[in-house]
């Protein structure tokens, strides 16, 4: 599909960086304010989808992007599993436990391993939504030729 006009392209370049930063803010402050891993991951996926829609599929090499996002998604969920199994060896010896020290309430480095889980689940959700969208776009492009 063709891209949109030049005004849309310039505005999208400026705004998608701000949306990406907002997504990272919601993920990392997941234990202090409303949000968490799922909301932040969906927002980051929205920033990438906005870029693909504004510039058209001619300007982007879609197949390599799809390979990259599948790889990142698989790595992220593998690291979540590693963190959960690692809890079997430390502390209370329960699967998926919260084993790092819980700091003071209300600080950004607190709540044990919850911020780590938030970050990697956020990456996984973002990569999964981008992979689904890219698979649909590639299928429509291939069949048009």
């Amino acid at each position, binding site marked *: 599909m063709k891209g949109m006009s030049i005004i849309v392209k310039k505005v999208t370049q400026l705004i998608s960086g701000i949306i990406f930063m907002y997504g990272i803010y919601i993920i990392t402050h997941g234990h202090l304010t409303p949000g*968490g891993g799922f909301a932040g991951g969906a*927002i980051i996926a*929205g920033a990438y989808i906005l870029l693909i829609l504004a510039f058209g599929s001619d300007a982007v090499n879609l197949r390599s992007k799809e390979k990259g996002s599948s790889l990142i*998604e698989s790595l992220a969920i593998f690291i979540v599993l590693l963190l959960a199994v690692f809890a079997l060896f430390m502390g209370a010896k329960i699967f998926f436990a919260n084993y790092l020290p*819980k700091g003071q309430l*209300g600080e950004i480095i607190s709540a044990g391993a*919850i911020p780590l*889980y938030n970050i990697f689940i956020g990456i996984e959700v973002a990569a999964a939504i981008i992979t*689904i969208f890219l698979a649909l776009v590639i299928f429509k492009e291939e069949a048009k030729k």
Partner: protein
Amino acid sequence: MELTLSILIGFMIIGAIFAIHAKDLLSAVITAGIVGYSLVIAFLLLKAPDLAIVQIVIETVTLVIMVAVVLDSTRDELKFKNDYKSFTNITLSIIFAAVLLFFFVQAISELNLFGEHTLRMAESYVNGAAEKTGSVNLVTGVLFDFRGYDTLGEATILFAAALGVLTILRIQAKK
């Protein structure tokens, strides 16, 4: 509060009925977005900000995918076939819906009134949860510490859905 919510849900019902009976497929998809976005306002009124953020972003992504599917295909709805099968379907479904509504009205007389929920099961989760998990956000604490297995299951389902879409939409190279 109950009046505001009733008006909002009435709005959603009207939008849903229109989306099912629309003549053009693109109008049906856009009207189905009304139900999703009104749900965001309902979540904000019911003091659930986590859910509002997730629902608005995912509803936008779903609408974009649906419009991409509909725009490249035939956009007109099929003619209403006046044959025996359609009329039996419609009559049976209305009778079934009336029976279900009757039993539902009987069943909710056992529930507490709206707004007077007693925290029977959540007592042990809410009391002292901020000290036990270390997180100020109670929903994140419940989701990642007390109920971690469910979160792991959900991440697996999303991963499996991405794999499934990749498998269904695979183009074989012609040899």
